[in-house]
């Protein structure tokens, strides 16, 4: 359908008082917008009706609302059509700049121009309809997390495939004698409920269980996974829509700790071995099978230590207290010694700890265990320093239990660096450990990228399920050390995310953070030069490659961040409502005065934090330089360098990119976008030098929404710096 643009300029909220509205109307008309009108208050019912009347009577089907920011009145201006553009004259212009001022006016006029140009290049996105989409959930791993995810997904109405490597379900939970308390009064050990959960699975026709099975390969994308498994040599394939990866952990290799006697003395065992003894019926000494009279627990064995595991495994304190109770229940005369660095019994576990502290047969002390030596009776002498007793002590016990940690299976395998990345490189876009769990047919590697210590955890506090692979959610202890209750919650949450991804894919929508976005990337392959930048830089591994290095894009794997659009030197990638051409046009049509006192800088603002921060500046009525023109981007990483060239060739004096923080504690909502922008800019420096332009004209700043009050200063300093360079010599060309 022919696009008919209507521009509606609101004069409320001081816009009418601060700007020459007639002039704005002239600017819009000159841009060939067929309908240009003003209204005293567009967000009121009369205002919305005013627009709707034009839509019906004049056939306006692309509406530009020049008023407040898109972050407000989003419901009011939901006109039921896809092409609605907001030109921010309020927060972005009149609230943050002096009224009735020439520069403020020029800013408003440029934004009107840019809005119209944007709309002229915008097409209504159509959702990508997946043919024959599969709604099944694949759960990898049949321990507590996997079983929970399977049960919970099935309860929500989805069919589940559960694939387990071992010959039975239950994982570590199946080996428990008793469980730590989960119910009030939080002091009693509970019978393991894992068997009830397994029964639930086995009786559920919606869940198909494959034990003794490994995943050979997973190809495809959310809604379209083709899974190949091997069960006892037999190959089977099935389809899935989303994946919960709950492959769990293995115990830390205790043989790496040499001063605590493991491997040397038979009566030094691990917490895992202790559980086995208890399950068998009696806790006995391995050396002679006699019932134990005294047991010493050494907590944090091989953990919280940069020489072994640097992290804490979260559950060993409570598990050790539980095992201490086993000993005390078995024999009320038996003594238990617990040597800890910190007793970690958070939340309601404190009640359990208290009950153990009240047990006269249990001695607890903070201390550093220096060594464990065997005596003539195969008992152990444990040397402890820095205890609460103030001195070095030696305690004798029949049995020593080392509370060792857990290691995620996702960390076991060869570490493969991304192509072109060296170990000493500051920026590692991802770490791929070929752990042979999922075996994804993805160009960037077969597993979920790991953050640290082998965990495919999300780096986001607020969004714990954001792995770097759309449609694949890690759950349980493979994600982070956690206890039983947290594992159940985690697996339930992961099942929700899996289902959500399936349903979003059915609607053709992206998932977090651009949830609801129905646009998707289009690749103009005729001009592709197979440079591989898109396939390597996509933070989500959404793009595969064929043998000739041509990118093969998967819309349902895509988060619509447009980082690929920014990476492509040939500019072949576009979205219906976001393209290189669209932004380039906006940049090229900014009015650039020739006078030196009227510099111009473009601020590419990431829409996640930077643009809201700029809005906050306006909302707070803080003022900033009128010499900037803000262009929102989906992500700083979607910045294509051609826009820098476009800007400079038009005489723009400088370009500032405002993106989210990058680095180890990155804030970038697309994981690597802001860092990629930074790297791309360093390449621009060479081009600038060649053009005899100062490389300082193109800068990047990291900004978070909470730091909005710094922005006026940031922008002012940037303009000061540009002033120092002098005007862009290409002005007026």
């Amino acid at each position, binding site marked *: 359908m022919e696009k008919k643009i209507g521009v509606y300029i609101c004069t409320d909220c001081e816009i009418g008082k601060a700007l020459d509205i007639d002039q704005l109307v002239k600017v819009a008309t000159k841009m060939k917008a067929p309908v240009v009108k003003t209204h005293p208050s567009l967000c009121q019912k009369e205002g919305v009706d005013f627009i709707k009347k034009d839509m019906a009577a004049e056939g306006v089907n692309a509406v530009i609302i020049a008023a407040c920011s898109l972050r407000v009145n989003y419901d009011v201006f939901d006109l039921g059509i896809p092409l609605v553009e907001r030109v921010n004259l309020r927060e972005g212009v009149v609230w943050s700049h002096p009224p009735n001022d020439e520069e403020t006016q020029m800013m408003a006029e440029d934004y009107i121009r840019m809005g119209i140009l944007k709309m002229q290049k915008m097409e209504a996105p159509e959702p990508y309809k997946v043919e024959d989409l599969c709604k099944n959930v694949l759960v990898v791993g049949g321990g507590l997390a996997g079983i929970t995810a399977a049960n919970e997904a099935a309860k929500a109405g989805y069919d589940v495939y559960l694939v387990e490597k071992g010959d039975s379900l239950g994982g570590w939970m199946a080996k428990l004698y008793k469980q730590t308390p989960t119910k009030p009064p939080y002091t009693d050990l509970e019978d393991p409920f894992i068997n009830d959960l397994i029964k639930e699975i086995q009786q559920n026709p919606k869940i198909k269980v494959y034990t003794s099975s490994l995943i050979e390969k997973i190809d495809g994308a959310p809604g379209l996974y083709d899974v190949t498994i091997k069960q006892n040599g037999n190959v089977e394939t099935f389809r899935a829509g989303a994946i919960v990866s709950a492959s769990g952990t293995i115990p830390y290799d205790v043989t790496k700790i040499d001063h605590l006697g493991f491997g040397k003395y038979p009566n030094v065992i691990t917490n895992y071995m202790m559980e086995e003894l208890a399950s068998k019926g009696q806790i006995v000494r391995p050396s002679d099978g006699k019932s134990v009279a005294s047991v010493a627990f050494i907590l944090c064995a091989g953990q919280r230590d940069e020489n072994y595991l640097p992290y804490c495994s979260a559950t060993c304190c409570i598990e050790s207290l539980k095992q201490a109770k086993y000993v005390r229940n078995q024999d009320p005369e038996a003594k238990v010694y617990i040597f800890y660095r910190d007793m970690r019994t*958070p939340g309601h576990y404190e009640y359990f700890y208290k009950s153990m502290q009240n047990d006269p047969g249990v001695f607890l002390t903070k201390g550093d265990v220096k060594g464990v030596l065997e005596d003539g009776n195969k008992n152990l002498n444990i040397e402890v320093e820095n205890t609460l007793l103030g001195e070095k002590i030696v305690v004798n016990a029949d049995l020593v239990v080392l509370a060792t940690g857990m290691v995620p299976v996702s960390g076991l395998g060869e570490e493969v660096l991304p192509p072109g990345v060296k170990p000493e490189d500051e920026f590692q876009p991802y770490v791929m450990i070929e752990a042979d769990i999922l075996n994804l047919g993805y160009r960037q590697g077969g597993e979920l990228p790991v953050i640290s210590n082998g965990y495919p955890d999300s780096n986001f506090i607020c969004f714990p399920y954001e792995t770097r692979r759309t449609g694949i959610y890690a759950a349980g202890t493979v994600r982070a050390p956690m206890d039983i209750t947290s594992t159940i919650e985690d697996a339930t949450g992961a099942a929700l995310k899996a289902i959500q991804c399936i349903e979003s894919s059915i609607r053709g929508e992206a998932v*977090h953070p651009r949830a609801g976005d129905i646009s998707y990337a289009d690749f103009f392959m005729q001009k592709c030069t197979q440079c591989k930048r898109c396939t390597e830089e996509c933070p989500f591994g959404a793009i595969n490659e064929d043998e000739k290095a041509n990118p093969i894009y998967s819309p349902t794997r895509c988060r619509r961040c447009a980082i690929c659009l920014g990476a492509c030197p040939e500019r072949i990638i576009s979205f219906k409502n976001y393209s290189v051409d669209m932004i380039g046009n906006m940049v090229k049509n900014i009015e650039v005065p020739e006078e030196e006192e009227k510099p111009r800088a473009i601020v590419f603002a990431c829409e996640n934090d930077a643009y809201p921060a700029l809005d906050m500046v306006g909302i707070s009525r803080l003022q900033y330089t009128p010499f900037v023109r803000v262009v929102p981007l989906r992500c700083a990483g979607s910045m294509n360098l051609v826009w820098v060239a476009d800007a400079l060739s038009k005489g723009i004096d400088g370009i500032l990119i405002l993106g989210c923080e990058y680095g180890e504690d990155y804030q970038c909502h697309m994981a690597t976008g802001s860092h990629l922008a930074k790297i791309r800019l360093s390449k621009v420096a060479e081009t600038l030098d060649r053009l005899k332009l100062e490389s300082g004209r193109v800068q990047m700043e990291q900004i*978070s929404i909470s730091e909005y009050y710094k922005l006026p200063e940031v922008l002012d300093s940037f303009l000061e710096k540009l002033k120092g360079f002098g005007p862009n010599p290409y002005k007026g060309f």
Partner: protein
Amino acid sequence: MTAEKTKSILVVGGGISGITTAVEAAEVGYEVTLIEKNPYLGGRVTQLNKYFPKLCPPNCGLEINFRRIKNNPRVKIYTVAEIEKISGSEGDFDVTVKLNPRYVNENCTACNACVEVCPVERPNDFNFGMDKTKAIYLPQDFAFPLRYVIDDKYCKKAECAKCVDACTYKAIDLNMKAQSLPLKVGSIAWATGWNPYDASKIDNLGFGKYQNVIINMMMERLASQNGPTKGKILRPSDGKEPSRIAFVQCAGSRDENHLPYCSSVCCLASMKQATYIREQYPDAEVLIFYIDIRTPARAERVYLRAQKDEKIKFIKGKVAKIEEDPSTKDLTVTAEDALTLQKIIHEKVNLVVLATGMAPNTKEWKAPAEISYDTDGFILSNTGVAGMYAAGCSLKPIDVYSSVQTATAAALKTIQSLVRR
């Protein structure tokens, strides 16, 4: 009444947990109503300066969540709203929500003209009473919805009405009345959050008596740019910069006389706050009095970092008492130092931060439903009522990461209730 089951979910509580449950369920495809008793969403998280372990700004995560709400027509939010009555059963609950009067309507543009003319002040609860606002106020600069509100405990209403005259947008209506909103929902998630434990109950630690004894949440406000001191950490008594600060861990926690459980976040919170202090005052000394340092799983790295800072001293020992020097308002902290031979120590500091715990809102306020609580007021994960679930700190005292975990799980549970025959 038809037997048709509704496909709609109610989330009670609009903090990070409630917001998460609502958004996650809505993105699967379900209609969700989110109600919040404050005039803004975000709850306790909006009062934090940063959170661990990345020390990122809470408004960043909230902004994306608000964007998800804005982009999703399936989510309806009501602020200054409370739950009044519930009847019915899973799949078919009849709920009455009370929409309290905000006295400010959607015309509000946050221009602040009303505040400039308002003659009445009130203690600012957002900043724990450390400063004041007018009777008409914006709760905080990131407030969503961005709309002012009148505290009718302080407002003089028609007797004054200066704000009404000052408002050029006709946004103030002093005659607004409470309204009733009936809803039909299939399942309900309780995400009612927490309050800081009342530290004035801990006699020996001086809170409420000595001005320079504050609680951890007050430190968050002091360190926040939008707090009472614009982010400069200053002593309440004289506004001076502190040079020696003591953190008292487990203040009123792990204690039968106060909160018997551990609130799980306070160790990390104190270490986080220690970084605020160390950044602002590179020469300041920080003493952390602890019983056990609880930095589980990956959070261990926060402890490792803090231990490497020479100016942060960890002292294992319960604080026995805190006393004030009335002339300087400095404090002396008396504690046992369990690991050295010197058993009782006295440390003089300028500021004490009590790392107080979290008490669930449901300790005092009980939901109008037969849900089960434990003796501390937390809602049991098996609530006892089919179709009702709990999320976040209403379930147990946890950090943001874990709250979001439980909230995402709760979203699935609420959906299951709708799917169940």
